[in-house]
Each structure stands twice: as C-alpha cells, then as structure tokens.
C-alpha cells in the first residue's frame, strides 16, 4: 500500500551491506564506520558545518570569558549606539552590548537545541523500537500516539504547550522535545521493522536470547546511523523553534539573553537601530546552517542509499 514518504531525510531502510551473520557483522562494522568518517572528512560542506557547530559550542561554553561586557547590565549612557570600536555590534535599547548578549544567547540556543532533541531521542527511540519489534497492539497504540502528535504542527504544539506550562526556557525545551519526538518514534520503528526480519535476529531468537538483549544488541546499533543524522538535522529545527518561541515571548525570559528574544525587541527598532536585528539573526542563521550542513554530511557518510 502507498506509504507516506516521511519528511525525515534519513532512509528507514537498512544499510547496503547488512551483515549476514553476527560474527561477520561484528567484524565489518568498525571498518564501515572508518569509511564513513573518511567520506565525511572529504566533504567540504560537512566539515564547514562541523567547524561552525564547534565554534558555536566553544562560544557558549566559554561565554563568561569571551564576552566583552556584562550581558544584562543596562546603561542609559549607551542606549542604541551604532557599532563602534567599543561596541562591535552596537548596543540595544537599554544600552546593553549586543555582542555580549549574543555570546550569552548562544547558551540558550544550543541548550534548547541539544536538550530538546535529547528528550525527543531518549523518549522517542525506545518507543519506536518497542512498536517496531513487538508489533500488534503495542505498535498500534504507540503509532497512533505518534500520529496524533505529528498532526499538530511543530510550532503550534510548542506554543500551546508553552502557553499551558508557562513561558520559560525549560518549558520551551520540553515543548520542542515533545513535538520533535514522533519523528524519532517513526524512524526507530521503521528501522526495527526491517532489522527484525533479518536472519541474524532470527538466529539470536533461536538461541534463546531475550527480547531486551536482541533489541539492545542487534536492533539498536542498526537504528543508530539514521537516528544520528535525524538528530543533527532536528537540532537545527529545534534552534529555530526556540528562537521562534523566544521571539514570541514564550521562551527565554528577559533580562536573560536569547537570540530570539533579542530579535523580538529589535523588531520595534528596525528603523532607528537595524544592527539590533541584523547580528542576532546572522547568529541563528549560521548556527542552523552549521547543523544542517553537518546533518547532510553525516547522512551522505552514514547512509549510502540517501546520497545527494
């Protein structure tokens, strides 16, 4: 029957040379990984993505040492000053240094990206594996739940949840995580379904391994590559989602900086202080681009069937 093509970019089919026996599989796996790594290193766009992501992570971690000013200290002497040698990216409506706020804002964005995708993976992948492996009513229940979550657009669900949970960065991360979860449920389920039918899984069952062992030992490793690809691409979506929620006033609360909330105030000063909107936007754009490039590169390296 006509299956809906998933929006996920990773293919839910097993990799080209799936191991025929467990022994051969165990031997072949590391070598295949090395090949993937070499392929990734040769892909210039992917390496550029990795460099951008690494840069953003370093900025977020070392924010207190890198920042030229206190990101929340206001100063009425320096309200809305254009970029200068003192304030490279200018100052905002309360005289705060835009660069300092951007450096600290990296923390909110990256935390939101990583934590929310972490929630989605930790909850979604086991559910998907259970659904795919056990089938029947387990699958029916989990799949309908995932369908239901998928039927509410990502941002609308996140807005609704943020509304009922209350506005804060933590709640935004939970909301984004929950709304990203069904992607991982579907991906893990599809992968578990195909791997389940492989001979080596039949073999493992025949020698009496428990379901838990089979899932952890044989199914999970096969599910991982597409999950990693999907995770890095979803971090990109999650960063935009956090910026969007903060832009709407439903994420990071003032005075703490986030790129989205900086743009929220900046939009009222487009005419008088365009630098307030230009630089935080570039930061979001580059970080998201980095994760997208990284995800594309990982997909090409790990998933031979889905090459662009």
């Amino acid at each position, binding site marked *: 029957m006509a299956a809906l093509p998933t*929006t996920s970019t990773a293919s839910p089919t097993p990799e080209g040379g799936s191991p025929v026996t467990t022994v051969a599989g165990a031997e072949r796996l590391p070598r295949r990984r090395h090949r993937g790594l070499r392929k990734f290193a040769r892909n210039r766009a992917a390496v550029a993505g990795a460099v951008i992501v690494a840069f953003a992570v370093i900025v977020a971690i070392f924010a207190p040492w890198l920042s030229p000013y206190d990101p929340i200290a206001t100063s009425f002497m320096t309200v809305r000053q254009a970029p200068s040698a003192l304030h490279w990216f200018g100052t905002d409506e309360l005289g705060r240094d835009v660069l300092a706020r951007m450096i600290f804002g990296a923390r909110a964005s990256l935390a939101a990206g990583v934590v929310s995708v972490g929630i989605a993976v930790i909850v979604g992948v086991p559910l998907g594996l259970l659904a795919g492996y056990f089938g029947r009513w387990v699958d029916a229940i989990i799949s309908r*739940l995932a369908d239901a979550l998928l*039927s509410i657009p*990502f941002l*609308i669900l996140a807005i609704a949840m943020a509304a009922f949970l209350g506005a804060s960065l933590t709640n935004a991360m939970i909301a984004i995580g929950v709304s990203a979860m069904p992607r991982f449920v579907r991906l893990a389920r599809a992968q578990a379904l195909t791997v389940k039918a492989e001979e080596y899984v039949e073999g493992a069952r025949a020698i009496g391994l428990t379901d838990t062992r089979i899932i952890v030992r044989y199914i999970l490793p096969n599910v991982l590559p597409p999950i990693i690809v999907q995770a890095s691409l979803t971090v990109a979506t999650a960063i935009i989602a956090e910026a969007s929620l903060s832009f709407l006033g439903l994420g990071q609360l003032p005075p703490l900086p986030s790129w989205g909330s900086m743009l929220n105030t900046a939009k009222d000063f487009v005419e008088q202080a365009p630098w307030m909107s230009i630089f935080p936007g570039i930061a*979001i754009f580059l970080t998201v681009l980095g994760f997208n490039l990284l995800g594309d590169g990982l997909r090409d390296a790990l998933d031979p069937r889905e090459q662009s």
Partner: protein
Amino acid sequence: MLRLVVHRALVAIPTLIIVSMMIFGLQKMLPGDPVLAMAGEDQNPQVIAALREKYHLDKPLPTQYALWIGDVLHGNLGTSLRTGEPVTTLIAQKLPVTLQLAMFGLVIAIGIGIPLGILSAANRGKAIDYGANVLALSGMSIPNFWLGILLIFLVSVRWQLLPSSGYVPPGEDLWMSFKTMVMPAFVLGAALGAQLMRHTRSAMLGVLRTDYIRTARAKGLLRGTVVLKHALRNALIPIVTVLALLFGELLAGAVLTEQVFTIPGFGKLIVDAVFNRDYAVVQGVVLVTAAGFIVLNLLADVLYVLLNPRLRRA
C-alpha cells in the same frame, strides 16, 4: 480504491480522538485551580461550588472529556474569556486571512521550489545545481521572522516600496491587498520553497536514473522533453504528498509571519490568546489545525493513489 479511502479514514479517526484527548489534557496541565482564579477576590465557597458545577469541574475526568468533546462535535468550542465571543466565530473570522496568506505563500514556494529542483537535478554536479543547493540550504536555515524583519527594513523603511504591516481584504481593494500580502507571503514561501526544491531534486534524480528515461534518451528524444514530460510526471507523485505535509509547516510559519507583519490572522489569534490566558481559544485553534492537517493528509494519500496508476489498479 474505495477500500483504501475507507481504510485511511478509519485510521484517521483514532488519531483525531487521541489529538482531542491531548488538547483536552492541556488545560489540566495548568498550574493552580482555574475556579479559584475565576472566583477572584470573592472566595465564597458557594460561588466556587457554583462555578465548579457550571464548568462541570465537579465531575470525574472522563465525564468532563465526554461533555467537552460532545460540545466540540456540535461545533461549540467554548467562548473566549476575553471577548466573550464564541471561539468558532473568532476562528471563522481569522482563518480566511491565514488561508489567503498560506495559499499565496504556497504559490510562491511552488514557483521557486519545483523549477529550481528540476533545474538542479537535470544539471547534477554543475554550477546551477551547486547554486540551487546553496540557496535551498540558506532558505532552510534562515528564521522566517528574521527574514521578515530584514525585508521590512530594506523594502519598507529604506526603499519605501511596500507597506510594512497591516492587512487589507482582497474584496476591499485588490491591489492594496496584494501589496500588503506579497512580502509576508514571500517570507512564508521561502523556507517552504527551499524544502520543496530539495524534495523535487531528489525525486527527479531518482526518476532520471531509471531505464525508461535512458530508453527515451536513447531513441533520440530531446533532453528537455524527457526531463519535463517523462521524468517530471512521475517525480511529481511523491511531491504531492510532501506538499500536504508541508502545509502544516506553512500554518506554523504563518504564526510568526503574522506576528512580524501584524496581520490579524489565525496565528495572531493563538499568540494573543496565549498572552491573554484565553485557553479556550488556544485549544480551539490547535484542534482546528490538527483536524485540518489530518484531513489534508488523508486527501494527499488518496491523491497519491489516484496519481499512481500502479496503485490505482491494486
């Protein structure tokens, strides 16, 4: 064929029920007792009891859900706490505005995404392909509200070509309506066009690799004819389904676009409702969106089969 439609519709029903339960559950996540908040200063136990009875909050949870879903099925989504108007009326007022924006955005997305995807696939590995890919990746990575702010700064503030905000119904002044809509629609369509380009490209690449395309080329047909007539028709099949899935993103994107350009649509309705703690409106908007999305997916499934002769016969 009919069996397929019925089957798909039957699968959609439990999904809809679960969605409605989740949306009902949202209000139970609210911290504090809503009745105490409603009673305000007057903490008279009789008033509180009366309110609890009025909103059926004294009944067990399944009963509360049954009463709520019964109302919903009768087209009663509750009343707005702020304006006192029925939620359905509010949605009926705002939805057309958003649909207009979304359709306009969709046209722009299709206009950019599909031709670029075809060009890119037909010229795989060449400069056009590279350029189109860079464009698509940038389009996917740019937050649409930021693109909106930048455009307002350039087009409205600097060049003073288009109004920066507002909404004019097309029935009132068609030209003005177009002028206020074109920038938001572009902002909305850009990200979608980028994704559409990538889907079109990969669908086209898949088809261009097949034997019948090689045969068509071998018998001397022009490259353009083969690409546009033979390949595109088959490549379009998966794209139709992708479009239905992307429509959800279009609605979500509209929330932000409407906020940036102050357009009084569906998105502005939900955001304002969130800040006014007008929960009935929030629930109503989410429910209508989800139901619309499920129906649209159902249609896409049916269309997918209709377009695909092999499945039609099955």
